[in-house]
């Protein structure tokens, strides 16, 4: 069943055409990644899905209903952590639930622990490193109750090991809860490792260049990363993107 449908979305800021007739969909419980050059309009698209930005034309359908200009239907990790500076880490993490759900301190504390931030529950954001803030922002959105999660480069500030660990954790959670995920990343490996489908956007004005169905079995193990099929698949995507950018 289709969960989210992007229908012919176009958007420009003044003269600057950003999105051009964008079309794709995300099925119920699907994990979809978006790959596209910097400045192609990925964050803008998230803004449109979240109801923050009105497209010039086109529509956004969630569960069969238009959510164009309507807010609160998605859970969101923004590209910059956007933590409230006057709240402790714990209270920042609980913010998403406060807005549209019920607070669950226990679970929040567990997750903070799981993300390697034990003992920082009562710190303030400015006392954290860049990667630590990003993890807090990630936990906040994962804790939010909505069934569609938008993640905008959630792991870009993490070292490879922490990143892999967070990826595994995300997959675990996703497999348990079967929420739909739309994931923006610049890391092709990450996109392939995590997703059911990878959507490649063209440079600005962005439209869908190509979609790849990821053929690997789940649950996926770290070993997959070193397999030939995986490397081959990565290369294919790489070529496709390079082609578009030159």
């Amino acid at each position, binding site marked *: 069943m289709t969960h989210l449908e992007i229908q012919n979305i176009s958007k420009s800021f003044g003269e600057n055409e950003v999105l051009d007739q964008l079309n794709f969909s995300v099925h119920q419980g699907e994990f979809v990644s978006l790959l596209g050059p910097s400045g192609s309009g990925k964050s803008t698209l998230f803004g449109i899905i979240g109801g*923050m930005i009105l497209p010039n034309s086109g529509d956004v359908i969630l569960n069969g209903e238009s959510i164009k200009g309507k807010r609160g239907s998605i859970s969101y990790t923004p590209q910059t952590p956007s933590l409230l500076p*006057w709240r402790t880490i714990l209270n920042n993490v609980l*913010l998403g639930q406060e807005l549209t759900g019920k607070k669950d301190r226990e679970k929040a504390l567990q997750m903070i622990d799981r993300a390697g931030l034990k003992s920082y529950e009562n710190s*303030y954001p400015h006392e954290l490193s860049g990667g630590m803030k990003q993890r807090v922002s990630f936990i906040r959105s994962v804790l939010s109750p*909505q069934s569609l999660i938008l993640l905008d480069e959630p792991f870009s500030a993490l070292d490879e090991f922490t990143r892999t660990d967070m990826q595994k954790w995300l997959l675990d959670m996703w497999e348990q809860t079967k929420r739909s995920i739309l994931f923006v990343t610049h890391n092709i490996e990450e996109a392939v490792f995590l997703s059911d489908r990878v959507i490649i956007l063209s440079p600005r004005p962005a439209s869908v260049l190509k979609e790849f169905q990821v053929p690997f079995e789940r649950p996926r193990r770290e070993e997959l990363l070193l397999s030939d099929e995986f490397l081959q698949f990565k290369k294919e995507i790489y070529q496709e993107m390079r082609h578009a950018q030159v």
Partner: protein
Amino acid sequence: MMNALWKQGWRPALVLILLFIVWETSVSMFDIPAWLLPSPTQIIEVGITDWPGYSHHVWATIQLIIVGFLIGSGTGIVVAIALHLVPFLRQATYPLIILSQNIPVIVLAPLLVVWFGFGMLPKIIVITLVCFFPIAIALLDGFRQTDRDLMHYMQMAGATRQQLFWKLEWPHALPSLFSGLKISATYSVMGAVISEWLGASRGIGYYMTLASSSYRTDRVFVAIIIIVALSLLFFLLINWLEKMTIRWRSSGEGGSSDAS
């Protein structure tokens, strides 16, 4: 606490003492008559010996200040919130707010007394008029400056208008609110003194007017010193409240730049 007070307080105390010394010596050097400008020692002497005679005036004024400031700043906050949340209201009533700041007390006074008699009410109205404006303006500007990224996140995450306000705009505007409160706290003391011109039979403003009309300049200065001391106290109180409320910032500033 005592220690912190001392640490913060010795510099202003020093400056005040210096000021008093300069004042004292110039009064005696230039032979300024006491009816024009009494010396600090004269003022202090009168202040101490007359205390039983005017202490009830001080209490009366303190009461008035507290009630007036609470109502005035409450009004300022409510007005700012209302104007912020209801843009139509903001656009429509801005002129009225400015208008309220420009009705001279000499004109307002008879009207207030004619409408509300000689009781507490017209005095509270005067203090409220004086206090609410700086708070309303500062708070409105604080609301407007809410961080763009945070706003974006909150809206994306589905915050209702009310949540947006209470969880983001309000805490974000707290420093601005305190900026306004500090201005108003200072004005509320002056407002109380002015309001006592609206027919009072107690209060430090009343005491000062009587002293002035019987040419007791020394007492006038006792009154001024009390007024200034009250304002200072009140200002420091707000400052302290700010430190207590906005802990996340003050504690942080020390941490992030601990090089000299």
